[in-house]
């Protein structure tokens, strides 16, 4: 039926014509009318930003000796998982080809890349088997090119610019806990720091503890960006733009590497002494602070080698680091340890007493025992020493004088408040003085790790009772009226734990009972005593110096407050403490020390804090010279015995190091250096 078909062909013509118009119109619209817009879209679609990481800043000591250095270096890594999956011989031939390129032997490569498991001697790889294992650092560009140009010859082998962190430990100084460590950023940290998605690469390192965490933003620098053109698969086809990274600033600290090393070894010796006397001592802290609130040395025993963070940390090394059996080396006991201050506490008790109206010229009885609230309080086995001044009481460290003062101040305090169950109870007179010296709260020193210690205010008693009476330690359930010692205490505390009782007031006055402080708090309080009443927020960081050597920011210890103590009172206490070393509890340890020389004169207070269940905490808090003090030195070793036996000799040796006495090389012959080093000494 051709005629019909031919007529209907007109419809087909029309249909095709409509298609033609549709295509032509759309093409005109896309290419001619919107061409510019699509050109922009096309350009945007073909570029990606690559983050060029900045080199992390170094951390140096007060003369520019490097404690932590960061560098970039061409690192050749072997991914053993890829290697074993892509080769039939487990990667042997690849490693054999690789060895001569890296100027090493096949055996050395296999040793470096084998996993550290039971029975495998070092060298071995202690990190994750899924992680590329670095086998050579500081590789030349030429070698890197040879490897990267032949991926088929070297499957799983990469040569990349990587950050290389080093801990040179100048003079043997290893303030590992103070420096902290860097680890890859976590998702949570990325969210917290509100980083743009390209701001941090996934494997970027972020300070996780210590100075590395505290000064992370300055140390990190600003990463650069490279704009590259890519194809759909994300493969780079060229570079469009380049913004150079700004490397991180160098953190200059006030730590003195020689002194730091000496303080570490003296602390270790003190711990060894305590252990040799049969104590189970497993930790300790030593701090040297200037009168101006700068930390010159800070040691925490035990320490650890921070290089484990850069070479891949094994499970066993990590367990050792955080394990109690090795004394928890990861913990900075100087800021985190909380110990009873013992008799070093009598300094604040004296200040509180004088503020409460006790005369500095008065005489106070030092009996052998004192009866308070039906209990007998003894002066550490000493016989009655009769009446004495505050100065004598400090020098011979008479406990009963302070028991009595603590009890008397309890009696004259707000007595109704002592027994009221009140979450907002006013703070006791003596404990208020201790809070004013910076105890009971964080010192503000520039490392993130720190504890507050305990000042048993009425509020603290109430809060602790609230938290433990029927929850937490569950005193009311566990306590027994005639059970073990602990059960009896729990029984008592259940019924009256919020009460501030006279016995507690007496024992708190000599720095025992509930009272705990961190070594940092105690050193800082003695700094305030030494400098005439200025309580600082101590600082380890001294300045931030740009990579070009310009001081970007000076870091000065902020003043936290002035002690509410008359300068005459502070001066009286300082003079009294000078006698401790010449004639008092510290005299034995300081035998042979040139006390009489006003340049080297040391004033100090011993402390021997009794603790339930373990041996006493040995404390020696000191400052020197006696007039216009420059340094505060504190050593605190828990579970170690008498302060005079363990801590005092260590402090004496530290002064020898500072001043260069008795054959020691002076660490600070001209005092703390004033100039800020602008170059890292290599």
């Amino acid at each position, binding site marked *: 039926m051709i005629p019909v078909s031919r007529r209907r*062909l007109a419809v*087909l013509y029309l249909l095709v014509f409509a298609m033609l118009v549709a295509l032509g119109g759309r093409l005109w619209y896309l290419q*001619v009318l919107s*061409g510019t817009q699509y050109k922009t879209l096309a350009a945007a679609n073909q570029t990606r930003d690559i983050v060029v990481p900045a080199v992390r800043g170094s951390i140096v000591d007060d003369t520019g000796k490097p404690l932590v250095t960061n560098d970039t270096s061409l690192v050749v890594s072997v991914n053993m998982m890829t290697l074993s999956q892509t080769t039939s011989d487990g990667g042997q031939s690849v490693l054999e080809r690789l060895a001569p390129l890296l100027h090493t032997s096949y055996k050395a490569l296999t040793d470096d890349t084998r996993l550290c498991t039971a029975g495998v001697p070092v060298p071995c790889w202690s990190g994750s088997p899924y992680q590329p294992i670095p086998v050579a650092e500081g590789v030349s560009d030429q070698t890197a090119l040879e490897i990267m140009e032949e991926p088929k010859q070297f499957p799983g082998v990469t040569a990349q610019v990587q950050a290389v962190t080093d801990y040179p430990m100048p003079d043997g100084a290893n303030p590992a806990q103070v420096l902290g460590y860097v680890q890859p950023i976590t998702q949570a940290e990325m969210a917290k720091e509100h980083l743009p998605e390209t701001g941090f690469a996934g494997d970027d390192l972020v300070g996780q503890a210590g100075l590395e965490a505290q000064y992370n933003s300055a140390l990190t620098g600003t990463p650069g960006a490279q704009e590259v053109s890519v194809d759909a698969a994300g493969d780079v086809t060229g570079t469009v733009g380049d913004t150079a990274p700004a490397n991180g600033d160098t953190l200059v600290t006030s730590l003195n590497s020689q002194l730091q090393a000496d303080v570490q070894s003296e602390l270790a010796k003190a711990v060894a002494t305590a252990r040799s006397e049969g104590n189970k001592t497993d930790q300790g802290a030593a701090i040297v602070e200037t009168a101006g609130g700068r930390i010159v040395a800070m040691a925490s025993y035990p320490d650890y080698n921070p290089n484990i963070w850069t070479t891949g940390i094994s499970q066993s090394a990590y367990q050792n680091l955080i394990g109690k059996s090795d004394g928890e080396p990861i913990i900075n006991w100087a800021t985190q340890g909380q110990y009873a201050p013992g008799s070093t506490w009598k300094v604040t008790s004296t200040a509180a007493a004088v503020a409460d109206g006790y005369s500095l010229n008065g005489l106070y009885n030092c009996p052998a025992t004192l009866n308070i609230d039906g209990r007998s309080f003894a002066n550490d086995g000493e016989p009655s020493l009769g009446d004495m001044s505050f100065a004598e009481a400090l020098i011979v460290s008479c406990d009963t004088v302070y028991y009595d003062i603590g009890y008397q101040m309890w009696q004259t305090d707000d007595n109704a408040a002592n027994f009221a169950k009140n979450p907002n109870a006013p703070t006791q007179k003596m404990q208020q003085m201790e809070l004013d010296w910076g105890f009971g709260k964080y010192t503000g020193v520039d490392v993130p790790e720190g504890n507050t210690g305990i000042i048993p205010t009425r509020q603290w008693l109430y809060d602790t009772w609230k938290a433990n009476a029927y929850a937490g330690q569950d005193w009311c359930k566990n306590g027994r009226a005639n059970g073990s010692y602990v059960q009896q205490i729990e029984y008592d505390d259940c019924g009256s734990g919020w009460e501030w009782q006279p016995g507690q007031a007496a024992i708190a006055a000599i720095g025992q009972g509930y009272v705990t402080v961190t070594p940092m708090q105690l050193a800082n309080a003695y700094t305030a005593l030494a400098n005439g009443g200025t309580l600082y927020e101590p600082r380890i960081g001294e300045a931030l110096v740009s990579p070009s050597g310009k001081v970007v920011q000076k870091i000065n210890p902020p003043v936290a407050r002035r002690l509410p103590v008359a300068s005459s009172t502070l001066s009286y206490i300082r003079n009294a403490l000078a006698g401790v070393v010449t004639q008092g509890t510290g005299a034995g340890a300081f035998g042979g020390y040139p006390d009489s020389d006003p340049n080297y004169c040391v004033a100090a207070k011993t402390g021997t804090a009794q603790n339930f269940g373990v041996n006493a905490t040995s404390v020696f808090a000191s400052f020197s010279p006696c007039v216009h003090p420059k340094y505060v030195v504190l050593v605190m070793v828990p579970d170690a015995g008498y302060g005079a036996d363990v801590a005092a000799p260590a402090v004496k040796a530290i002064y020898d190091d500072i001043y260069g006495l008795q054959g020691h090389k002076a660490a600070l012959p001209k005092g703390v250096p004033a100039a800020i080093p602008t170059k890292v000494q290599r």
Partner: protein
Amino acid sequence: MSGLGIPSRGYGGPRFGTFAPRPKSLLARGLEKGGLLRSWDWLLILATVGLSGIGIVLVWAASAPGLEALGENPHSELKKAILWAALGLILMFVSASVDYRRYRRWAPAIYAAALLLLLAVLVAGQSVNGAKAWINLPGGFQIEPSEFAKLGIVVSTAAIMSRQPAVGARGAGRPTLKSAGLAVLAAAPSIILVEREPALGVMLVLVFTLAVMIVLSGIRLYWVGLGTAIAACGIYMASKAHLLKGYQLTRLTAFLHPQDNLTGAGYNGYEAKIAIGSGGMHGLGLFHGTFTGGNFVPSVDTDFIFTVAGEELGFVGCAVIVALLAFVVFRAIRIAQRADDLFGVLVAVGVASWFAFQSFVNIGMTIGIMPITGLPLPFISYGGSAIFADMIAVGLLLSVRRHHTLFE
């Protein structure tokens, strides 16, 4: 007259002494009106060759950067494309030389061969991107039977719908509903097999071609109306019953909002649109398209070859391609108009609607007005089977034209 005594000897040729007409050369005789060379549609051939040439260049531009990046010979696809085009042209001339009426006689065999190939792909097919559409041949070659299914449908439908001799009373020669039903039944296995592969785009081409051929065969309009209604109902039921696979639906609708699904079904369309749009009026020049050369658009040498034209040749190049394709289609419709019998009409109509629909959908999907389905652009896209089928189809057109009574 003869009384004049001059013996009549009839016309005995020019008298002695008059000039005889100069004997014409073979070429001249071929070119004169009704001559053999005139029987070939040279313009159609020229358009076909032009499209193939553009196709070869575009395949080269699309494949060379990627091959070079892989470290292979950047001209390997170019060489093959030239080979396919040359073989295709030969196939075109061969199929054009055969009297198209013979195809009618051979229709059952052609139909069976196309169907067998489709069955073979179902059994021994090679899966590429989830579609089982290729059969591996020795020597590293592949055959794509769905391309030849188009030829099968065109020939078999034309044969079935032109069964009635066009004689007798008014209206008696119209194809009956029975013929239409038979044509649908005959086409159904091919359509179903192609759908099974799955090759949604090819299936749509087959359905469209079949429908246009039946309508154009002269079947009563009310049957056309009824058929349209039934088809509409069927589509509605199918969408209700979720007969379309999930991916099919996603792909069919993704082009409406490509930005929503950039990693999935919308990606191709979105990237293709940007590539073509960024070409502007004159394009970036051959081999200068960072977009298509950078492998942003997948299948850039086959289904998405038009993006290369768009980016590198601009609106001008695209317009030339569209115009050439339109010329081929219009030429096919013109051949249908002049065909001697209904079979010839229907073959030409089938080829015209096939080329028109496939070109429109292919180009349409690259510029965001059609859903994305796997369809090559006739003559241009890289692929031997498609080129061969297209060329043979042009051969059929030429055959219909050549065996017009005028030239016989």
